[in-house]
C-alpha cells in the first residue's frame, strides 16, 4: 500500500510540510474563535459578578464543590492521555495510539457523567433558572442569574465535550483502519489541540463557578 502520507496530500499543497503547517494554523485560528465565543460569556459573567458579588458567592456556595474538583482532575487526566496519544502517533506506535485514544474517550465520558449528575442534583434542589427555581436567600434574583450563567457556560462546554468525543471516535476508527503513520498524523494533532482547548476552558469554569463560594458552604 502506498505511503499514507503521500496519498493524503491535498492537491492545492506543494508538500506535506506545508499542508501540516497550514492545517495547524487553521486549527489555532479556529481555537481563537472559540476563545472569543466563550469570551463573550466570560465578559457578561464578570460584569454581573462585579455588580452583585454577594449573590454570586451565594450561588457558588450552592455548587457541588468536590464533584467540580474531581471533574477538573478527570479532565486533566484526559488531557494527559490525549497528549500521550499524539506522542505515540508521532513515534508511529499505532497500537499505543489506539489505546490512549480509547482511554481519552472513556475519561471524557466519566467527566460527562459527573457533569450530568451535578445537573440532576441542581434539578433536585430546584435550582434550574427560568424553569424551576426556588431560593429563599435575600438575593435570590442574583443567585438565579448565577445559575443562568452556570448552565449557559458549562452547557456550552459540555456540548463541546460531546463534539470532542465524536471527533475522538472518528480518530479511533481511522487509526483502526490504519490511515495514520509516523509521517502523516495531522488529524490526531488537531483533535489533540481541540481537546486540550476544551480542557483549558473547563479550568477557567472551575475557577469562576466552584471556588469563590466554597468557603461559605
Amino acid at each position, binding site marked *: 500500500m502506498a505511503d499514507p502520507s503521500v496519498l493524503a496530500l491535498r492537491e492545492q499543497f506543494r508538500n506535506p510540510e506545508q499542508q501540516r503547517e497550514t492545517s495547524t494554523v487553521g486549527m489555532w485560528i479556529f481555537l481563537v474563535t472559540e476563545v472569543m465565543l466563550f469570551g463573550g460569556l466570560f465578559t457578561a459573567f464578570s460584569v454581573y459578578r462585579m455588580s452583585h458579588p*454577594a449573590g454570586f458567592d451565594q450561588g457558588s456556595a450552592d455548587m457541588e464543590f468536590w464533584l467540580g474538583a474531581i471533574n477538573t482532575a478527570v479532565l486533566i487526566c484526559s488531557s494527559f492521555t490525549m497528549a500521550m496519544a499524539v506522542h505515540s502517533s508521532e513515534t508511529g506506535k499505532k497500537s499505543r495510539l489506539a489505546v490512549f485514544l480509547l482511554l481519552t474517550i472513556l475519561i471524557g465520558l466519566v467527566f460527562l457523567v459527573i457533569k450530568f449528575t451535578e445537573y440532576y442534583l441542581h434539578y433536585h434542589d430546584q435550582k434550574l433558572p427560568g424553569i424551576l427555581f426556588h431560593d429563599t436567600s435575600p*438575593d435570590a434574583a442574583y443567585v438565579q442569574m448565577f445559575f443562568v450563567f452556570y448552565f449557559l457556560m458549562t452547557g456550552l462546554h459540555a456540548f463541546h465535550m460531546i463534539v470532542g468525543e465524536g471527533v475522538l471516535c472518528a480518530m479511533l476508527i481511522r487509526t483502526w483502519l490504519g490511515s495514520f503513520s509516523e509521517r502523516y498524523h495531522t488529524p490526531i494533532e488537531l483533535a489533540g489541540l481541540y481537546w486540550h482547548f476544551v480542557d483549558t476552558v473547563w479550568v477557567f469554569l472551575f475557577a469562576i463557578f466552584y471556588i469563590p463560594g466554597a468557603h461559605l458552604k
Partner: protein
Amino acid sequence: MMPTCLALLLQGSVTREYNVFFWVMVALCGAVGTGIAAFLVYCAWHYRRRSPNELPPQISMNIPAEVTWIAVPALIFISMFAYGLKMYFDLERPPDNSEDVYVVARQWMWKTQHLGGQREIDTLHVPVGRAIRLNMISQDVIHSFFIPAFRIKQDVLPGRYTSIWFKAVVPGTYHLFCAEYCGTEHSQMIGWIYAMNPKDYQIWLQQGAAEGSLASTGEKLFHQFGCSNCHHFSGHGRGPNLRGLYMRPVQITTGQTVVADETYIRESILQSRAKIVQGFQPIMPTFQGQLSEEQVAALIAYLKAIGPAPGEEMPSGPGEEMGDYGGIRPDLSEPVAPATKPGAR
C-alpha cells in the same frame, strides 16, 4: 419650512453653541470634501490617458506628504474631540439651581411630574430661563427623551434613572420625540414642550389642580407604606436615618461605598436587599410591585426635599423655598413657588 429652521437656531441655551460648532465642522469638512472631489476630477481630466501605451512616471512614495496628511488630520481630530467633550460635560452637569422634573416613560407615552405636583401626559410646561433637570426612568423597554430644538437626547432605561438638563431661552412649542426604537407605536410616542414666559407659567401652575406638591405626595406614601416606622429622622430607628440622604456616600455591607443617587434610592426601595447599609440588618421588605414608578419618583422627591446632606451649606435658590432645616419638619403642603430671580444661571 424655513421659519422652523431659523427658530431652531435660538431656543435652547445649548442650541446656539451647538449650532456654531456644528456649522464650523460642516464648513471644515465641506472644504476638505470638495477639495478632494475637485482634485479627483482635476486628475481625471488633466492626467487623462493620451495614448493606449502611455506609461506615466512611476512615483509612488513621498514621506513628507505622508507625514503631513497623518499629522494634520490628527491635530484637527484632537481639537474636535476636545470641544465635543467640553460640550458634553456642560450637557451632563446640571447647574446647581436646576429644578427637577420626574419623567416616566412607558410603551408609547411620556408621563411627566413637576415638583409642584402637576402631572402631564406627552407634554411638559417649563418656564423660560429656568434650568430643568429631567430624572427619567422607563417602565418597560428602552426609550429616549429627545428635544431637537434644545439639542438634548438621553436614553431612558428600565431599572435605572438617567438624567439630562436643558434651559429654554425662547418661548414656544417644541417637538418631543422618542428616539430609541421601542415597539409598534414608536413613531407615535411624541409630544410637545411648552416654553412659557414666567407669568404665563404661573397662570398655568394655578390652573393645574395639583393635590399637593410631589414631595408632599411622597410624604403621604412615606407614612402610608410604613417607611416611617423604621426610618426615624431622629436617627435611631431600625432603618438608617434618611435625612439628607441624597448624594451622600453610603457604606454598604459588602464594603463598597456607593453614592446615594436616585437609582440607589429606587433600588433600595424596590430590591431592598441589594445594597444593605453597613451596620443594619436585611429586614426591609421589598416593595416591588406595590409601588408604581410615579410613586417611587414621589418618594425620591420627598427624600430629596427633606434636606441636603448634613454639613453641606444650604444651596442658594430653591433650597430656601424648601422650608427651614433647623430640625423641625418642613411643612410641604403648599405648592412650591419656583424662584423667579432673573438671570438665575
